[in-house]
């Protein structure tokens, strides 16, 4: 029996992932900002086979509620086997260039709130000595590009934080998974033009489920991004800075 905490549970990737766990009979705590959305997601997952399900409405930037949130989730489910952090926004790069306030807000949502949650989750999972902490980062964090370096920088912070955390928690038997999706066709990216490398959230969800089950450390989804990003990272900065990416 699996007991899973999902933060950002109304996001498209989180919903698709939760459906796989629900169909397998997992128990879930759904956390998100909008209680109405959480209710719709919870109904869906209950029909699909979730054993127990609870929702908690919370804005990711309410840092002082994070520790309590994890304790509450443990109380509800009688323990936690996994946590998936899936919340995030796609900042408007141009607007961020003109406004530090916007940039800071996006760092709070996409990086700091994740780091705060991870701090509490890490301690709680380290004590119990097992479990999975999975976080959705992005290929955008592998290299900064002019078109979305604010978003990329928040994801780079999360990726690096997770590397260290994985190193620290390895000894205690806690599995830390970094998920790096390429572009996914979700409401978050609704405004962007779509190319052939775009995938549906279900594809990423199936990859996340497999990676949690097989205790992968880092997973690119779909896998082709693993190859593509080796190429992107290998371009010398001298050349990269001249490219319009």
């Amino acid at each position, binding site marked *: 029996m699996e007991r899973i905490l999902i933060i950002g549970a109304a996001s498209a990737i989180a919903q698709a992932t939760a459906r796989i766990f629900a169909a397998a009979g997992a128990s879930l705590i759904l956390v998100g900002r909008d209680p*109405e*959305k959480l209710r*719709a*997601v919870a*109904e*869906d997952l209950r*029909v*699909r086979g979730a054993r127990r399900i609870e929702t908690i409405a919370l804005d990711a930037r309410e840092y002082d509620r994070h520790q309590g949130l994890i304790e509450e989730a443990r109380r509800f489910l009688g323990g936690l086997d996994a946590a998936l952090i899936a919340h995030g926004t796609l900042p408007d790069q141009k607007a961020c260039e003109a406004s530090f306030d916007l940039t800071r807000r996006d760092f709070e949502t996409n990086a700091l709130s994740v780091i705060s949650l991870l701090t509490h989750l890490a301690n709680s999972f380290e004590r119990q000595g097992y479990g999975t902490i999975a976080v959705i980062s992005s290929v955008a964090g592998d290299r900064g590009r002019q078109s979305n370096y604010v978003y990329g920088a928040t994801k780079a912070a999360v990726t690096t934080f997770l590397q260290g955390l994985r190193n620290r928690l390895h000894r205690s038997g806690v599995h830390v998974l970094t998920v790096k999706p390429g572009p996914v*066709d979700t*409401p978050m990216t*609704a405004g962007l*033009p*779509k190319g052939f490398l*775009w995938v*549906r959230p279900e594809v990423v969800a199936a990859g996340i489920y497999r990676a949690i089950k097989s205790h992968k450390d880092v997973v690119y989804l779909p896998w082709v991004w693993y190859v593509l990003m080796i190429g992107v990272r290998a371009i010398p900065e001298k050349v990269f800075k001249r490219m319009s990416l």
Partner: protein
Amino acid sequence: MGQYESWGGYPRVRQSAVRLGWRHLPLPVSGDQHRFYLPFGNGRSYGDICLNGGGILLDARGLDRFIAFDPENGILRCEAGVLLSHILDFVVPRGWFLPVLPGTKFVTVGGAIASDVHGKNHPREGTFGRHVRRFELLHSSGERRICSPEENPDWFRATIGGLGLTGVILWAEIALRRIHSPTVLTETVSAPNLERLFEHLLDSCLRFEYVAAWIDCLARGRDRGRGLVFRGNHAGDDSPTLSRGARRGLRVPLDLPVSPVKEASIRLVNSVVYLAHGKLSCPRLTDYDPFLFELDRIEGSNRLYGPGGFLQYHCVVPLECGKAVVEEMLGLTLTQGTPSSLGVLKAFGSLPSPGLLSFPRPGISFALDFPSHGPRVMRLLDEFDGILSSAGGAVYPAKDARMSPAAFKGYYPRWEALETLRDPRFSSTFWRRVTKE
């Protein structure tokens, strides 16, 4: 993704789209009174009922959640963007089935209601709308209505087969039917001419739940109207279980620059298909999926018709003159030099549709694909409309891209009742075309 076309690829229009994701939110409707909206499901209707040139589509595929399921009585409530394929994946292992399934399972619940779709079992189960117990409608004004035969019955009737014009369907409650196995016991009978094809088709409906006939539209002379009748019944619980592995079907991976569907290639394929079947095949147990969803076997099969797309003429003709009309239409396709690439016959029974503008009515359903929309085909189909009007038939809006306002108003005399209940901010390319003065 990001593309909004109909299945036939004709016509193409300029339109924008917004996505609906949550049923508690109001519609994203602007103040500009001259912009029309139209709900969009999975784009499997062929012509222009799912298009809204110059307007805005409300893409409902994000409304894809289940809401409640009663496993004792087989009642499923789900959001309107859920695909029938997803419902089947969920209910079949639990011993339930959708009572009415069109030739593709990749349609949304909202789309199935808006076109009041039918299946190969119309004489037994009628249309999809007969199995819809209630649904919620959201109007551009923000008003919400629960509709059922008892509650808001006018809206219930207008929305079933209402082409998405009465508002956005947010969710629906569907009555499922029991099955004892996902297996269907099927047979194929071949018929050397139209006479025998009709006999087999009608005779099969007495003993089989699912019946459809394929016609070789290019066969001439003695062979005119030869074809195959496919028929099947749900297997009982004593039947062996077939493995239901994930099948990967064929796929047309890209848009072809020219269509390979030409008279010679159709003739070749038709002959191979016809001759490959003996007089009467042995009964065979098969999974319901490949039997019911012929169209889904090749993913992107519509791309075979090339960049110009294709037209389908799908009509219903009263039984008394069914054979004569089909014979006349088949003859015209050959003499006018506009061969049809695919012909399908089904029987419609007398179970009434709840919808105001539902297409099925008792008689013979006849569908013809044409790999072109050039002026010759257009003239031919106008001629078909003339034959059909005098025979008392009707054309299926979900397949149409070309019928005239006069023809439409003749087939659907109650169209004005739908017009009165149409959401004032909703319209479609189809509706503007067929209601033109």
